[in-house]
């Protein structure tokens, strides 16, 4: 009697489908990866994004320019001030407004603080995903201090809505300056300790070296920017290539990696934190004493005291608050170095009160498509570490 059981070599090889996300703790946001795995090796990955798509580009077409800043807060919410400033600078480019040095330096301070906050999250969450919880909680205290400084500058912590078209909404107050000095004193010790804890840790290095690597050619082809591109060895940084907001005044280095793997990304981001500290130090020490906003009464909201006693200020106040200011027609593209790459704003104005078209060049939307290639053939646990190191922020991904 012949056996009904199939022979072992006749069994069809089967792969397993695994849903990583949409609400998986390791995805740090709402997006889904449908992984096809063979044992523990990843065969293919199919991404689904758009779970928190809020149609910012469509919303922006109906909003006055002043009300779009709040939309940019919600792109990369780990570094909102950079998005805010990027948007203001785009509009200022369209208007042809040049800011006084003090306003530019204050912006640089805010942006570099935001970069530190962003990279702190990136690096400490990466440590959490490899099993090191302590370091994360330790540096989150410092992020709180950065948020305290935001609070002194603009009154908000997470969705900052910082700055105005034409400058900052108010000058740096003494408390803010004190807190920045305090931060510059305390933070380096804390971050140095974090690096001591993680950077040369055997387990961490084993988990991250040679994982999720990409060559410089592929990274460029995929449109990588920011830390991910520099980790692959390309020294492209918008702050240096096309200096904005007086970045040319500061002395800082652009760290680059070699292999583009998770460990290189960790090291580049860590080194960038040190460079940001350097920039903030220079900016706060050489803070110019001119005005914190440009002389552009038509576009810059006047101080409230003036509104009560000055007719012109009242008119401008009313027109700006009601969104009745027409912008000149034209089209501009302005890029800033965001927390995770080149954040670009492509703005087309037809001369009305709202943009005709506004497109956000969102860095992580563009580089996240390389994820299947990065994790192909690697283990599931490597896939999670790779995703964590890419600094994909769902708010920016889905706009």
């Amino acid at each position, binding site marked *: 009697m012949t056996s009904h059981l199939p022979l072992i070599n006749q069994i069809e090889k089967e792969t397993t489908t695994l849903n990583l996300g949409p609400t998986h703790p390791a995805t740090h946001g709402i997006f889904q990866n449908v992984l096809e795995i063979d044992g523990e090796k990843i065969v293919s990955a199919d991404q689904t*994004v*758009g779970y928190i*798509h809020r*149609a910012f*580009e*469509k*919303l922006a*077409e*109906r909003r006055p320019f002043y009300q779009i800043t709040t939309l940019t807060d919600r792109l990369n919410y780990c570094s909102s001030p950079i998005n805010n400033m990027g948007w203001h600078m785009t509009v200022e*480019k*369209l208007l042809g407004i040049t800011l006084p040095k003090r306003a530019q330096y204050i912006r640089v301070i805010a942006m570099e603080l935001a970069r530190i906050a962003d990279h702190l999250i990136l690096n400490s969450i990466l440590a959490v995903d490899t099993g090191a919880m302590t370091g994360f909680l330790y540096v989150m205290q410092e992020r709180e201090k950065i948020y305290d400084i935001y609070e002194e500058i603009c009154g908000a912590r997470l969705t900052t809505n910082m700055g105005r078209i034409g400058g900052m909404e108010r000058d740096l107050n003494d408390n803010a300056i004190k807190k920045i000095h305090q931060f510059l004193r305390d933070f380096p010790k804390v971050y140095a300790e974090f690096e001591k804890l993680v950077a040369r840790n055997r387990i961490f290095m084993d988990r991250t070296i040679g994982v999720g690597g990409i060559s410089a050619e*592929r990274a*460029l*082809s*995929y*449109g*990588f920017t920011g830390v991910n591109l520099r980790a692959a060895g*390309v020294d*492209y940084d918008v702050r240096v*290539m*096309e200096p904005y907001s007086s970045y040319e005044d500061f002395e800082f280095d652009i760290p680059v990696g070699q292999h583009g793997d998770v460990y290189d990304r960790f090291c580049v981001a860590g080194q960038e934190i040190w460079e940001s500290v350097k920039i903030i130090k220079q900016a706060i020490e050489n803070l110019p004493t001119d005005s914190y906003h440009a002389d552009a009464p038509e576009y810059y909201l006047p101080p409230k005291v003036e509104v009560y006693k000055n007719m012109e200020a009242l008119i401008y106040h009313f027109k700006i608050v*009601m969104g*009745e200011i027409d912008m000149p027609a*034209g*089209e*501009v*593209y302005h*890029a800033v170095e965001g927390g995770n790459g*080149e954040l*670009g704003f*492509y703005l*087309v104005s037809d001369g009305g009160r709202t943009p005709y*078209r506004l*497109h956000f*060049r969102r860095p992580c*939307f*563009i*580089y*996240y*498509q*390389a994820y299947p290639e990065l994790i192909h053939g690697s283990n599931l646990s490597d896939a999670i570490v790779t995703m964590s190191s890419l600094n994909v922020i769902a708010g920016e991904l*889905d*706009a």
Partner: protein
Amino acid sequence: MTKISNNFLLEQLQSKFGDKILSYDEPHGMLTVVADPSINIEILEFLFQEPQLQYQFLTDVCGIHYPDQDLPLGVVYHLHSLANNHRVRFKFFLPDHNPHIRTASQLHAGANWMERETFDFYGIIFDGHPNLKRILNVDEMEVFPLRKEFPLEDPNRIDKQDKFFGR
């Protein structure tokens, strides 16, 4: 580091593609070239391979809609030559109905999702794209929401009518 001027780039393009370059402009310092959509890949390849130019970084692809034009739908490419630190913008205009343009995803891997996004919002079909389907909106959606014929709010609402400012 060599430096490219907008004029030099424009001369190169005009000598290579002649009257397929339809018009050009320089808003806020960035050369903006409107060209015939049938040669979009030829232009991207030429800019990519020419050793003097090396526009090898595709910064952005997006769509734009001008309902009043003869060719209302536009595809906008932002290219960056990292070697020369120079940016250029290209626009290709397409008809409203059945707009087709060839994909750049074989040349720039990153064009894949950017073109899907453009398709998702404007319905521009990128021929030869490996996986042209909606990306941010739900698959069941039947319209292309960033086109201007779709107002953000229901125009029949009267509670939001603003008699003083007329909008």
